[in-house]
């Protein structure tokens, strides 16, 4: 059993979504020339955005279920794959525009991918600009059990633990949906706390810092205490930063817990109980002995979930696992760990 938790279908442009937009919004998009919402989180032509052998002669990669089936599921031997669309609807400022485009993106994903390959599952993409509308979008789609999680971006306008977001988490728990936090930013804030960097390389590296902020926020605000059955999955996050972050959180939890009296479990316990991380990118040390130590620091073999991050160019060839992850650990990362993270994947085929 192998489940790929992070696959990115390519949206060719807004025109691809027009069939799923109400007439008035379609006309407005045409009149105003809203042709594309691809965000600078993944500029089309960087070497990272699409691996050379997955990049078509023209246009975006991974735009059809057939391509994803052949290049990703078949090629890596995955039984199931979870789609995480990254078309930049989260950056729209208007509540209404963001909501209709989120709905259109989700309906497009369902019609163009889920309906065409039974091995595919998907995220409900929401904009956090208006939490009530985000919850309404979850309610609209929750009955379709092929949606297994709700997707938000690591670079949010406010830290994700803050209480204005909690209705979203309540909806996740109500519908057995995981909360997925994916690399990328709404870009309401610059990619670093020091403002806007000069290079895309810095933007991309900065995702790791954003995930560290989000984990700290979710812990400190008590999201895991309020929603003990919520599963949080960090996607394309990296995970080698996790042990040192937990040590630092633990230090200040000890020193400052009067600020957050609800935090009754250590940060490491909370993560073991409720947070998971996708395998790719594995910002792992080249030395296998050091990787073994790192797994000791992680304190659990249940935290990682298999992912290729297709079609992003995180590795060459057909081996998605970094050297040093073998045998039984590989089986857990590919199967049991993923099933434990996603309640809906344990149900009979939808």
């Amino acid at each position: 059993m192998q489940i790929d938790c992070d696959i990115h279908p390519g949206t060719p442009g807004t025109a691809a979504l027009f069939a799923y937009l109400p007439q008035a919004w379609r006309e407005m998009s045409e009149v105003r020339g809203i042709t594309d919402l691809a965000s600078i989180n993944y500029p089309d032509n960087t070497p990272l955005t699409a691996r050379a052998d997955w990049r078509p002669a023209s246009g975006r990669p991974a735009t059809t279920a057939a391509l994803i089936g052949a290049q990703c599921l078949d090629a890596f031997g995955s039984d199931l794959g979870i789609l995480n669309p990254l078309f930049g609807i989260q950056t729209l400022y208007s509540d209404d525009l963001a909501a209709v485009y989120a709905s259109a993106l989700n309906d497009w994903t369902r019609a163009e991918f889920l309906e065409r390959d039974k091995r595919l599952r998907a995220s409900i993409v929401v904009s956090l600009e208006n939490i009530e509308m985000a919850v309404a979008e979850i309610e609209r789609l929750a009955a379709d059990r092929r949606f297994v999680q709700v997707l938000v971006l690591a670079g949010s306008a406010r830290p994700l633990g803050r209480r204005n977001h909690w209705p979203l988490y309540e909806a996740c728990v109500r519908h057995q949906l995981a909360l997925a936090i994916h690399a990328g930013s709404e870009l309401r804030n610059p990619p670093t706390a020091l403002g806007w960097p000069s290079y895309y390389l810095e933007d991309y590296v900065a995702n790791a810092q954003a995930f560290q902020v989000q984990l700290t926020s979710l812990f400190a605000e008590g999201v895991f205490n309020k929603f003990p059955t919520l599963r949080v999955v960090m996607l394309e996050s990296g995970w080698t930063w996790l042990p040192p972050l937990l040590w630092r959180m633990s230090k200040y939890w000890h020193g400052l817990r009067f600020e957050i009296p609800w935090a009754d479990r250590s940060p490491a316990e909370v993560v073991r109980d409720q947070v998971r991380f996708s395998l790719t990118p594995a910002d792992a040390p080249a030395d296998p002995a050091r990787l073994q130590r790192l797994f000791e620091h992680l304190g659990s073999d249940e935290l990682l979930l298999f992912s290729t991050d297709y079609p992003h160019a995180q590795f060459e060839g057909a081996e998605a696992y970094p050297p040093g992850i073998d045998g039984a650990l590989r089986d857990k990362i590919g199967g049991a760990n993923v099933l434990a993270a996603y309640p809906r994947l344990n149900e009979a085929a939808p």
Partner: protein
Amino acid sequence: MTERPADIVDCDIHPAVRSMADLDPWLERRWIEHFRQYGALRNQHYVAGGGYHKSQPNASRRDAYPPEGGPQGSSLPFLRSQHLDQNGITVGILNPLISSQGVRNLQHSAALCRAINHWQAERWVDSEPRLRASIVVPYEDPEASAVEIGRWAGDRRFAQVLLLSRTSFPTGNKRYWPIFAAAAEANLPVGIHAFGNSGWPVSSAGWPSFYLEEMVGHAQTSQSGLVSLVVEGVFERWPALKLVLIESGFTWAPALMARLDRDWAILKSEVPHLRLKPSEYIRRNVWWTSQPLDEPDNKRWLGDIFSWLGWDRLMFSSDYPHWDFDDPARAIMFPAGDDDRARFFAANARFVYGFA
């Protein structure tokens, strides 16, 4: 508790003013009057204190109030007896965190920084031979900063140029290069201490609720600053520059280096000015001070990080008189060789700062 080393260089001690009037001897009349009327306006909200309230007054130990009165860290005799003598500190580096750097009025910022440098040299270092000062610079005005560095270059009372971590642009940005050029010219290390007010939210996901998050967050902010310094090519341009990250955490560094190297390998067409792998610059140009030491369940894991980063890159710091002070007798609570301990407590700092 382990035996205390004979030689301990403390790379992070915070002297305080009793009040801003302590700086008056070195300020023009106009700035004294300006401060009285307008204060020192920074990129933050409150007249006194920061946006995130500390865990205790002045973020300092409750036992560190001087007997003669005044805030913690404001009395040289008490700092001498409570810290330097009691903890066996042979050399201590002063890092003043007094409103000056990051003050929005750049001329006011420069005047305050200059006064603080005089105050350190004449009120502290001249009276206590174990202490060294840091050149506080108005870093949002890089040209004025270079002038301030030039003013003290060659004065052995000063150990380094001091910046705060939250610069208004990423720290390696070209606008700050006059600071690095002047430090390199003066053969002075650049120390970057956590805190400051960039004008942006303290995280890339907006403002968190708690002081706890601000404190954990310094690790992420410092990572972003270091990434910028490397990727902008500061260490390519000034290959001998020594950078010291102070109170920034360091256990994050091995994972960050792996990530930077991997992402650079994919995206290096964007940064042809980098001739080395990012981690090679970091291993050549960067040192870290130890406080606040993280607290893993198993202390040996901290030892793993020390060995991965290299015992030649880490330097002891106490953060006296702040509340999360690290005691030198309790800093290394995992197996470590005598040579490694000697490097950590003194030899690395003596090399980086050129102390005899």
